[in-house]
């Protein structure tokens, strides 16, 4: 092309290019607050020159080659990795705070205070064994203690239930995300195949991938046509649906039963979501919310176990001493002080000489022997049946259990889920510590822990872990924050910058328009002025 029409063409191209650039600028400006948006900019390049004999190469104007988005994919990788870690820590911190709240220490309405009151009540009883009121105080205080143990146990079990519910619900969200990502991926490949840059679609997909990374750790590799392959950490399954196949992957949660905790598995489903085939191996993420939730199973369970050990130690130590024979109406009775409440609310395991007494006792079912609640005179407080109505020596020995150290945490001889009264006596040297009145008691084991000491240990460990979790969250948030800042710096829209661009493109547009009107004048001269 040559001549004035050629020049007009050049200006026209210029105007169109500037218009395109303006469009991009306005697109950037309107999306300044859109999450996940990366700024786009039009790449202008001079169009192919033509070669004329004589002057040589002549320029032909400008072309918008492409509109690209500014994005650092390595930063994306770093951010996704840190998001997974942060989500893991947040889940842990949330549940540990909840457990802390359940125990509610330090406080004067919680277990530690009631434990003190329990032992104090036995002390007072030892001084006033003949008084009914003193006996009432003992059984009522003990009942408060067992009620609180039951309640705490139930709340911990509820927390465990919440954990299960959250695990199940995460699956819904994840499957939704997977479907969306798959759809977008297909769109992106189509658009790229047609030769265009699907910038906004890529942004949307990246945003969904960021969200998915908070659920579990993901490995992303790019494929051709701007596609990706998405593999969850630790597995080799590509969650991105192949366009030829008609099945896709979903996540499934299989609930635990008995002592086995629940697990996640990937399943192949058809387009309606119906299950076709299950993947053999369990999915065990170690980061992301799912990773955090899976690890919490053990945490919560260990707190429940510790509470159960505490309840059992209190119960069996008191029962051992209380259930030595007491003569009631010429018959020897071996009444347990602490008993078990079964599912229907009936009180069982009241006989200290019963088979496997104490085996099924835990913090959830511990209660007071209701015979003693109804008739506190049945409390066994004296050395033996002949020593007289003002003999409170047995009550004193029970009160002194406060300072007695038991073996609770040991792997072989400690208190376990199935420890019976007999085993407990054996492990703690019952029959080896005999008081001067002939009352059999336990032997103080210097490697053991007292009841109050053991409980304090539970709370201390919990406090340290909760504090560590909080610090963890704060640190990871800062780290993630600095990466996000970098991404914002690279890909974010700066209003000031766009405004300058606006001015720039505006002037260029005006200049090109001026050019056209100049050429128009020239043409006017040529067409209308040269020959009338």
């Amino acid at each position, binding site marked *: 092309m040559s001549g004035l029409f050629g020049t007009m063409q050049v200006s026209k191209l210029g105007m169109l290019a500037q218009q395109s650039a303006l469009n991009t600028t306005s697109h950037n400006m309107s999306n300044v607050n859109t999450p996940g948006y990366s700024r786009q900019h039009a790449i202008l390049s001079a169009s192919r020159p033509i070669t004329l004999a004589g002057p040589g190469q002549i320029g032909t104007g400008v072309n918008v080659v492409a509109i690209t988005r500014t994005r650092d994919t390595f930063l994306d990788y770093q951010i996704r990795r840190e998001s997974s870690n942060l989500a893991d820590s947040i889940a842990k911190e949330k549940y540990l705070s909840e457990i802390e709240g359940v125990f509610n220490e330090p406080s004067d309405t919680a277990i530690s205070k009631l434990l003190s009151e329990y032992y104090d009540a036995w002390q007072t009883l030892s*001084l006033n064994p003949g008084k009914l009121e003193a006996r009432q105080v003992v059984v009522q205080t003990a009942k408060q203690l067992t009620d609180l143990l039951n309640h705490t146990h139930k709340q911990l079990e509820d927390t465990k239930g919440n954990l299960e519910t959250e695990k199940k619900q995460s699956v819904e969200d994840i499957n939704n995300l997977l479907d969306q990502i798959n759809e977008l991926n297909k769109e992106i490949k189509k658009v790229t195949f047609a030769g265009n840059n699907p910038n906004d679609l890529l942004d949307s997909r990246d945003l969904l991938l960021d969200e998915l990374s908070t659920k579990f750790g993901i490995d992303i590799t790019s494929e051709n046509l701007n596609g990706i392959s998405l593999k969850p950490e630790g597995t080799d399954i590509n969650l991105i649906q192949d366009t030829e196949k008609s099945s896709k992957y979903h996540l499934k949660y299989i609930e635990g039963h008995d002592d086995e905790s629940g697990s996640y598995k990937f399943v192949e489903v058809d387009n309606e979501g119906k299950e076709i085939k299950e993947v053999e191996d369990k999915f065990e993420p170690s980061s992301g919310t799912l990773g955090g939730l899976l690890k919490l199973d053990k945490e919560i369970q260990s707190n429940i176990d510790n509470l159960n050990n505490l309840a059992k130690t209190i119960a069996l130590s008191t029962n051992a001493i209380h259930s030595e024979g007491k003569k009631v109406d010429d018959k020897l009775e071996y009444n347990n002080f602490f008993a078990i409440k079964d599912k229907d609310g009936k009180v069982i395991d009241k006989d200290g000489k019963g088979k496997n007494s104490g085996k099924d006792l835990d913090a959830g079912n511990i209660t007071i022997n209701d015979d003693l609640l109804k008739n506190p005179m049945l409390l066994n407080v004296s050395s033996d049946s002949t020593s007289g109505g003002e003999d409170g020596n047995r009550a004193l020995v029970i009160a002194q259990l406060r300072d007695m150290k038991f073996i609770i945490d040991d792997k072989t001889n400690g208190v376990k889920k199935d420890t019976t009264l007999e085993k407990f006596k054996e492990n703690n040297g019952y029959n080896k510590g005999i008081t001067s009145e002939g009352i059999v008691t336990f032997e103080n084991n210097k490697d053991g822990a007292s009841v109050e000491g053991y409980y304090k240990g539970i709370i201390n460990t919990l406090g340290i872990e909760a504090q560590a979790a909080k610090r963890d969250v704060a640190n990871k948030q800062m780290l993630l924050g600095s990466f996000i800042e970098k991404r914002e710096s690279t890909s974010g829209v700066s209003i000031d910058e766009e405004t300058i661009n606006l001015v720039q493109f505006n002037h260029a547009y005006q200049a090109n328009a001026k050019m056209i009107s100049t050429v128009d004048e020239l043409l006017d001269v040529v067409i209308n002025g040269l020959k009338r």
Partner: protein
Amino acid sequence: MRITNKMMSNSFLADMNVNLNHMKRKQEQLDTGKEFKRPSDNPFKAARSMQIYSEIYANEQYNTNINHTINWLDTTDSALDNLGKSLSRIRELMVSAGNGTYDKDELKAVKDEISEKVNEISQILNTSFDGKYIFGGTHGDKKPTTVDENGKLITGTIGDNLKVEISSGVVIEYSVNATEILNFKSKDVNDNLGDLLKDIIKDLGEDGDISKVNNEELERLDSAISNLLSVRSKVGTFQNRMKGAKNVNEDQNINLKAILSYNEDIDWVEKSMEMGMIQTVYLASLQTASKILPPSLLDFIR
């Protein structure tokens, strides 16, 4: 480094959150007056607090025990005092009756008074405190002594001494049994006050031997009185020991409470100053943000 407006507001928000977190902590501390509200705020101090609390509760129970014992011992002491007075009066009567100047009627009057004294002694030995017979030991629900129809002092079932724990692992016997008072040794021979009084009354009677009253029986009574005195001094020693124990216990209570306060209470002045500083930082950041965040180039382009 390229900076966008969003980065400025993000960074402001993040720092604001840190500030607000600090403010929340300080406010919690000022509201409760305690350094920590839950174990995760400061696990070490929380564990220490729990430990000290349980020691304080145990200590308070021991204080109750000690007070109970002190009251018991006071009652015991005044009972023994009265018993001493009765025995002294009996001795007086014996001395005056035994010197041979009394006639039959006067002797009978002495005998009647001493019989009455036997009843009095039985009553004193049946003193009760807080629903228990203090000289009955672990059988304190039953009367320790009775007087039979012949006027003899008989002991019922007496139990062992009562025990009390006054501090961790320290258990002491604090009661006195009727048998300790009634049984004594006279010239290395085991003797009993009930038997002695029966003998005295018999010897003051018509077919009694009046000479014994002023000789052997007086000696036996002296042994009984010195036994009573030794029991009384034992009680006195216990009383002193209990008073000492009470002082120790109360000092310990004060110490424990001081340690507890040092561990968990805040220093109001220090905390208020820290709160003031945090508030200043907060206000400064708000002001700065309000100046920097709103304006942009658009305000200046026509």
